[in-house]
């Protein structure tokens, strides 16, 4: 069955199919339709919607609900995402599965409500305190707003970690056709660690504190080991990349602009291809390296170059230092979107 829906609505649908039982949220443009959908649909399925008093409350309500062994989520945009960072660190520190959707708007500060990808660093590298990471997915269509929200719950449960669905204002508002699955996911059983208020979970303790330095270090080592293993779930998508002399790298909405740019370049004889990371953490490093070797590389992004820096870092870590050094970027900020014209022009300058 298909639905023609806004990306924001697709997120709620994905969450429901994934078995998310509780939504905690605070209104913010351009993510509010997620709360609107959740307020309507969660209760109709006998699930819970709570409008929190602020984003700090939302994320800490999630701490309680996840700690009590249920799948839960929130959705927000930049300013709210900033407020949630402490709570996300606690979720990571207590190894709690939960999903945070960030529909990125322009910043810093109040900025405006138009699309940016400028929250890259906090969304991908763990924006709060301590050495933690999140499982971060970057949808590029309404279908992926659905699919990757579902996947975020799966990954959050698999890795016992907060997962971030990192979208942008444009995708939140954009309507496209979403193909819905026949059925949803089975709810995972967290009774071996969650505080569920049941006899079998009486001994369980959900905490992020280890007073002893050696224990805290052990816990950190455990986390890092887990994050290294997450690489097995990295996803990237290559398009027209096999014979490309120029590889355009972009995620989310920029990945789609990259796609059109490559098609336009091919029309004028430039062999361009695209690599789109679908997961940003774990970053699909090996998959990128496989199509990046010996190519010229250009990123498209809606930030100041945070993503390009991460591409350079990943290329360098994959042993492609020369390719890393040559990475160029075309970008816009403030809610402006990179035009295909500009991207084509920059690409031609590189060739």
């Amino acid at each position: 069955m298909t639905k023609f829906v806004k990306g924001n609505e697709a997120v709620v649908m994905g969450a429901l199919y994934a078995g998310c039982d509780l939504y905690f949220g605070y209104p913010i443009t351009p993510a509010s339709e997620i709360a609107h959908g959740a307020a309507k649909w969660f209760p109709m399925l006998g699930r819970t919607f709570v409008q929190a008093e602020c984003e700090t409350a939302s994320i800490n309500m999630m701490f309680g609900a996840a700690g009590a062994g249920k799948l839960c989520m929130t959705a927000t945009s930049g300013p709210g995402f900033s407020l949630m960072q402490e709570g996300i660190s606690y979720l990571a520190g207590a190894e709690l599965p939960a999903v945070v959707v960030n529909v990125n708007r322009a910043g810093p500060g109040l900025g405006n409500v138009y699309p940016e990808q400028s929250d890259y660093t906090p969304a991908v590298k763990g924006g709060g305190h301590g050495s933690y990471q999140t499982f971060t997915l970057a949808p590029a269509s309404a279908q992926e707003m659905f699919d990757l929200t579902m996947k975020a719950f799966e990954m959050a449960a698999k890795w016992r970690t907060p997962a971030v669905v990192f979208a942008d204002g444009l995708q939140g508002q954009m309507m496209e056709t979403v193909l819905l699955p026949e059925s949803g996911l089975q709810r995972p059983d967290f009774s071996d660690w969650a505080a569920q208020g049941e006899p079998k979970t009486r001994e369980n303790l959900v905490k992020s504190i280890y007073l002893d330095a050696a224990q805290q270090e052990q816990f950190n080592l455990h986390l890092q080991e887990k994050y290294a293993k997450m690489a097995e779930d990295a996803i990237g998508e290559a398009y027209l990349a096999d014979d490309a002399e120029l590889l355009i790298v972009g995620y989310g909405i920029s990945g789609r602009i990259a796609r059109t740019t490559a098609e336009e370049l091919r029309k004028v004889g430039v062999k361009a291809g695209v690599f789109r990371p679908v997961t940003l953490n774990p970053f699909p490093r090996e998959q990128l390296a496989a199509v990046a070797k010996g190519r010229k590389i250009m990123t498209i992004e809606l930030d100041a170059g945070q993503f390009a820096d991460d591409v350079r870092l990943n290329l360098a870590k994959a042993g492609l230092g020369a390719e890393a050094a040559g990475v160029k970027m075309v970008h816009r900020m403030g809610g402006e979107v990179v035009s295909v014209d500009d991207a084509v022009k920059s690409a031609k300058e590189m060739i």
Partner: protein
Amino acid sequence: MAAIEQKGMYKVFPRSGKNVSFTHYCPGCGHGIINKLIAEACAELGLQDRTIFVDPVGCGVFTYYYWDAAHISAAHGRASAAATGACRARPDAVTIAYQGDGDLGAIGFNNAFQAASRGEKFGCIFVNNSLYGMTGGQMAPTTLDGETTTTTPFGRDPALTGHPLHVCEVFAQLKAPVYIARVSVADTRRIMQAKQAIRKVFEIQRDGKGYAMLEILAPCPTNFKMNAQDAAAFCMNEMEKEFPLGVFRDETGREALSVRPIPQVASCSELFAEKDAVPAAETDASFAERRFKFAGYGGQGILSLGLTVAEAARLERRHTLWFPSYGPEQRGGSANCSVVVSGTPIGSPTVEHPDVLVCMNQPAYERFVGDVKSGGTVIVDETVPVKVQPPEGVRLIVWPAIKMAEEFGVPKAANTMMLAALKKFKCTGLSDESLERALVASFKKKPALGEKNRELLRLAESRDSKA
């Protein structure tokens, strides 16, 4: 060491790296007594299996050493928010948040207050010892006028820091809480009263009655810089002057509100089922991609016109994307939307160079007309003065959409009149049938209007343009 009573508590309290059987609380501290009363109440009522304790940051952080029940150790100030999450996730559990006066009164006040205001079904045990204990005896919102703390070394000065915060009195302004009371553990008589009150908090949760707030005055000899006896005396003589003991609300007899019924469905598939769901898009490289921009004032039906074209494309199994202007731009009165229809998966969603531009007002026309692709079409309402010519190779159609809609007596149908132009001049690459079906479908909730609009669409098509 004498055997300690274990009711509701673990047999040993293993502190980090050692196995020692005494608490982390200082001698004379109120927390130890309160912890024991809570453990007893929980055990005596047989609730240990059902209880989720939400622990604070502060001196109460290690209650999970003691209470034999499940625990969630929350962030500083956020125990009430976390307890909200826990009690919503587990309505059958007995959820108890334990918070101090810095935790609840300062950083987490709004979370506690709003949880109380929502009538969350958890009990909040709020320990007021007039200062921050764990972090080294700083001023809390509850610090007494003139009281010396590490951040009020000259005594709390109300001219600079205001007066002590009365949590119970503030919470008593709210409608939702079932029970609000203040007790003390400074002497035996008070401890016995506190025990009854704590039991009551558990009973309220056991019975699912609603929110309960119990403030407990407690001595902190270490940070008062007093011996245990003097600290207890300070608690009774000085603190009680500011914070009188008593019950501020007891509505345990009242019926809990029942949730208003709303329509229920059994599954996601049922929730999202559509009678005439369109099949997914098919890839057909022979269909040339078309990009549309629709612009005008809010209220002219610009966004729904775009949606109708998008729906027609979906009916033909094209890849389709619709994107509106949003945010303050929309509120300012102007509206626009973009539609992309393609035979292959759509790359960039933005419409930089529309193949078709539909404008219903002058600002929109002047803003977008220069962007139209060579070979493209601009349809503009005839009320718009065409002061700027479109780029070369662009067809301009001046169309009386607003006027016709008024003539037909349906001013709101100006967008349908525009659709007539799109159809008449073959701008969409979509069949007439799909456009009409999509138009009718856009009035799904008012089928009569759908038919009316189809009729108007056909009438309008017979008009000539000033192309």
